């Protein structure tokens, strides 16, 4: 009987393996806990004169940066990890499309990133006494979730680049900072030149992060002049587009790598 490879089975297995790999390396503490913590600390020092909502804005910025860092890094690294671990060929020789394997990894990385974000908020609340309540906890949870999804999707797009070339690591390292800026994680988008702003609008997390802030801070005037529901809807649409693009690209990438004989390079 021919085996039907179940997508959910593959995504789940891949996610679990990535999590196991993650916890097996004690260094995970550094990017996941220490780095976001330091980001928050710096943000709080920068905004030391302000109070209330603006402080929360700063803390959210730190937290989101934690998410971004681990997602962009993690999804890129989890593929290049396969390259130097020598598991690229074994992974690709399985009869399941690569997108499902990558998706499992990226979901784990983003999950881990959003746990960082919550960790940051908890530090902010408990230690620095930033704010006391979220304006709308339910919408906050919903917008965090879709942001998380769009981060996953973005991660899969990056993963394609990684598989394609051994120069991929260089590309993800370089993309991280512009992404912080373009998504308005660090500065409000309004401060950016127009063409960078245009890029910002096409990135799902930009909308998601704005939605998170709108849900968290009652008095927050969004970087994007839309209601939170529009933000969430657009985030979802962009996310779906990302995933669709990813899976198409991935098939293409695999073909090119097979033609060039670069699958096993490390």
């Amino acid at each position, binding site marked *: *009987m*021919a*085996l*039907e*490879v*179940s997508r959910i*089975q*593959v995504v*789940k*297995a*891949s996610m*679990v*393996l990535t999590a*196991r*790999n993650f916890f*097996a*390396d004690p260094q995970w503490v550094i990017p996941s806990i220490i780095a976001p913590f330091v980001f928050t600390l710096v943000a709080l020092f920068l905004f030391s004169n302000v109070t209330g909502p603006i402080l929360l804005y700063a803390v959210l910025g730190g937290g989101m940066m934690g998410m971004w860092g681990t997602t962009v890094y993690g999804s890129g690294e989890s593929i290049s990890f396969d390259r130097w*671990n*020598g*598991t690229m*060929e*074994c*992974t*690709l*020789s*399985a*009869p*399941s499309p690569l997108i499902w*394997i990558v998706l499992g990894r990226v979901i784990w990385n983003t999950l881990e990133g959003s746990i960082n974000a919550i960790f940051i908020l908890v530090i902010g609340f408990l230690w620095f006494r930033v704010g006391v309540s979220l304006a709308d906890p339910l919408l906050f949870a919903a917008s965090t979730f879709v942001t998380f999804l769009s981060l996953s999707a973005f991660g899969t797009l990056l993963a394609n680049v990684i598989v394609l070339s051994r120069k991929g690591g260089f590309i993800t390292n370089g993309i991280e900072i512009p992404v912080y800026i373009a998504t308005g994680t660090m500065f409000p988008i309004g401060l950016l030149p127009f063409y960078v702003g245009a890029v910002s609008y096409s990135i799902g997390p930009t909308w998601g992060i704005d939605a998170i802030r709108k849900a968290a801070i009652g008095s927050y005037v969004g970087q994007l002049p839309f209601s939170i529901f529009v933000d969430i809807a657009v985030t979802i649409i962009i996310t779906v587009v990302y995933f669709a693009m990813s899976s198409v690209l991935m098939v293409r990438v695999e*073909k090119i790598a*097979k*033609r*060039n*004989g670069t*699958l*096993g390079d490390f």
Partner: protein
Amino acid sequence: MLLCVTHKRIYRDANGGSRLAEYCVETRDLRREYLNRNFFGKVKSRTNALSGLNISIKYGELFGIIGPNGAGKTTTIKILSTLLLPTSGSAFVLGMDVTHDLYRIRKRIGIVFGGERGLYNRVTGLQNLLYFSDLYGVPPSVSRKRVPELIEMVGLTGRENERVEKYSRGMKQRLHIARALVHDPELMFLDEPTIGLDPAGARDIRGIIKQLKKDGKSILLTTHYMFEADELCERIAVISKGNLVALDRPSGLKKQVRDITLVELHVYGDSRAVSSSISELPSVSRVFSEDSGDRTIIRIQTPDGSEVLEKAKVIASQNNVRIIESSIKEPTLEDAYLRMVEE
């Protein structure tokens, strides 16, 4: 099937794949070229890794490809296991075209690469096997039973819950074989599975390969150890620089180098006249002599060992040279191999 119109005898097997009646692997003029590019992507040079390989492997056969480093063994395995596209020519695995039926082929083949590669070192052996079971879509109810059996088969029982990084080189290689078996493939590609192992570790792997053969798997094994191919394989393809230089049963390959049967004579006395007379015998290809303490060793290369030895004895006694000992050395497969790949 559209893809297989060139084949005459095709039937559909239980898995829905079309299948040649006789061969589980068939390549036709298989070529693979690598472009070596410089930093800017310009093509610097080309490597012909395979220049027109033709092999056919029967169902249930244990077929060996032997060749020195860089001969094209891994390239062949990668093409057959759908990980690399041929530059030209065609390859059919289980009756399916390697460039089209990727997933259907992958479900039915198992691939083992030699060396440290292919495992997740930070997790346990068991977790590795369960992960790959999921990747191959093996139902959990099946893998729960099969995985312990595989662990048993490769002799890792009791160690399956340790992290792979704690395994010895040999244990890793055995786990790697188990990994390739999680979906119970009917055809196995083993690419230098004993490379870098100590003799005991290599023997364990050869034992497992014999077991796989007994279990009815078709196997393509590559190696650069001739004795290994001799011990395991029913037929051996010798390749060198991307070309097939011989394809035969081990006994047939040995026959091809019959002329390097070596007759060795240990003699006392002045042997120069003897050597030159022997070298004039019709079936002798070469004669070497070497002083060794009080005696001289004469080595004679010939396809007809026993006949030449008789004639040499006569020549020696005619020249009053005493033979202390004599022997005939049949060529080993190693000799055959070395000669073929050096030519």
